[in-house]
């Protein structure tokens, strides 16, 4: 597979947020592809050194922290949040309930799918679930280090998207982020009282039980944003729309922005993706069910910037009534 390598590295001044990814040029997340997010696997190492006894202390004080709860479910939490963020895209993520049920019914063990030959796993999942893309996720890090005066929360996630027909890797990304709180970040105080508040307040901030929730929200949003990233980011454009009905078939022609996926939406029928026959020219032919009738439909185009543009499509009545 010829694959363009895209390496993006973002290091913010506030922490160690990083994103690195590679993708196939064939992947177009603007198309309405059905996608299954498989159960993630937890490969995080856990607490280290001094954080071990302090982490254990935190775990028995649920008022301060839900650290143990979050650790036990980190793979499930991140899977559901990646799935939730995929709803922001044109992709059609399959419900985790449906995925888990159909995998079990087909005798496919998620752990084995993850550990074995991923290409073969993706093909097997696609056959069982009728999906176009399969997402494998590995939690690389999910840890809170707390040393009284400072704390570090770190999360790292590895995502793989594979084509369900060929099993080929179409996207791989690794995202990580660290949230810190504590006195190591510096103190700026003009008054003794202010200094005292900072001295007590900042270490306490590291114990907030919502930090993992925020971090998991951010890291999954970051992962899906990276998946959506397209160069150029041109908007959608529709300059001409026409329809012709002949022999029970409707042919639609749309002129607009080149390379932008365009869908035909007719009342009562599933949307159809138009084929771009020349740059900026899209067409599709749809078989109309017997007795089908409508005065108009729509075409929907999605630009590289993921904005949508909808245009009305008039359907010639005389051809339908003939």
């Amino acid at each position, binding site marked *: 597979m010829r694959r363009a390598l895209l390496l993006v590295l973002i290091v913010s001044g*506030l922490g160690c947020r990083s994103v690195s990814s590679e993708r196939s040029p064939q992947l177009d997340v603007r198309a309405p592809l059905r996608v299954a997010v498989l159960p993630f696997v937890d490969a995080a190492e856990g607490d280290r050194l001094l954080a071990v006894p302090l982490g254990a202390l935190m775990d028995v004080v649920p008022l301060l922290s839900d650290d143990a709860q979050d650790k036990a479910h980190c793979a499930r939490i991140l899977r559901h949040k990646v799935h*939730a963020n995929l709803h922001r895209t044109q992709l059609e993520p399959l*419900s985790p309930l*449906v995925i888990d049920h159909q995998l079990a019914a087909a005798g496919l063990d998620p752990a084995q799918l993850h550990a074995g030959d991923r290409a073969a796993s993706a093909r097997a999942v*696609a056959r069982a679930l*009728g999906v176009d893309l399969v997402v494998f996720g590995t939690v690389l890090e999910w840890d809170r280090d707390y040393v009284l005066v400072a704390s570090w929360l770190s999360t790292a996630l590895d995502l793989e998207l594979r084509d369900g027909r060929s099993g080929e890797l179409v996207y791989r990304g690794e995202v990580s982020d660290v949230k810190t709180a504590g006195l190591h970040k510096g103190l*700026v105080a003009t008054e003794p009282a202010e200094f005292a508040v900072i001295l007590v307040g*900042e270490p306490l901030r590291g114990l907030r039980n919502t930090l993992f929730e925020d971090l998991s929200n*951010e890291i999954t949003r970051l992962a899906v944003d990276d998946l959506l990233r397209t160069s150029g980011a041109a908007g959608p454009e529709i300059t001409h729309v026409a329809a012709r009905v002949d022999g029970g078939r409707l042919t639609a022609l749309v002129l607009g922005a080149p390379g932008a996926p365009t869908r035909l939406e007719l009342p009562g029928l599933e949307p159809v993706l138009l084929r771009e026959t020349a740059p900026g020219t899209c067409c599709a032919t749809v*078989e109309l069910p017997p007795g089908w009738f409508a005065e108009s439909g729509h075409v929907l185009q999605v630009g590289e910037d993921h904005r949508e543009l909808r245009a009305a499509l008039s359907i010639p009545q005389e051809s339908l009534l003939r």
Partner: protein
Amino acid sequence: MSRAGPAIGVLLLTVGCSSAWVRPEPTPRALRTVAVLPLLPAGDVADDDLGAHRAEMLTTIVTGRMAAGPYLLMPPHTVEHRLRAAGLETPRAVREASPEALHGALGVDFVVRGDLTEDLHVQVGVVHWRSVECRLEAIDLRDGYCFSAVEGFEVDFSGVLLELGQPFEGLVDAVDSHDDESFVRVAEWVVDDLVRALPEPPTPPEIEVPVIRDVRWELPAGVDATRPLGPGHALTVSLRGDPGHVARLDLGGGRRLQLPEVEPGHYRGACTVMVGDRCAAPSVTLTAATGAASARPLGLEVDARPPRAVRALHAAACGERVVLGWEAPPDAANEALLYVVHARRAGGELEELRRAPGYHTVLPRDPRVVGYLVSARSEAGTLGPSRAVAAPGASR
């Protein structure tokens, strides 16, 4: 700044609250399937230019969070499609529809709908305030009863002087606070709380996977099904399976064609392969409203990609003959089997002269011909772009 300023900042960092009300008695029938309806901007948000956009973002967040919950969520594109088919084109029309009408359109047990009642962003110098408030209702469509109503409010309050001696972090927070990402961050807090407050079903919902019993396809007479289908080839597919679902012919890359249900449990449709189509394994999929689907490969291959242009085309006179030579297109993965040679006459008209299997051909010299065009032709019959060369001795 007063001495109490930082302390107030600490308190406000965690400000936020949610309230929930759930019908005390359990709903009489088990709830299994749910759809999220478009949320609406309400109150001051309704007058805001960004209100509808932010309500749409909130709908997406609620949908994503509900998908991870214990109910079977109808996929949002299916909800949109069914509402549109029922004549409910706008979020306002959906809100005003009766439970009976929604049940008829969607067929789910209950819906979640709601309002974005506050989207407030205030920035004073280097300090900002971003608050989001919304309410959600869960309505049993079978009796129209609202069995759960939850309201939530969250705020993000930060700034240079409130970040406990970390002015850089506060400055970046303040700069970022006005954008969509800031809204999403706070909205996710609210929605997480609200969705958790919805009642859970006593037992996991049963999931019905549609069954495909038989799939047949037809090709026009003379088309070899063991070779890739090319442009213009008509493919007719017939599927028999469980009735009342959506059957599609899937040509890869998101290109699908619906197979209409011509009689209960019998889905049939046709498509014509178009230039550019490429699918190693076309399949048919039978999908239920919940997204559960069965798929079956057709055992065919479609490859209507045009080959690329030939390289190094040249012509040389050899007595009363002309020798044309060229090199194969650079795309070895889509190697052409034949090269089509056209002659262009002085008047501009084209005439196909030959289909050559190799990389050269010898033609009789014709004084009326001013040039030659050579195109690669794929195995499936798709003609690639032409390369042209002047005929030896022809005046330009």
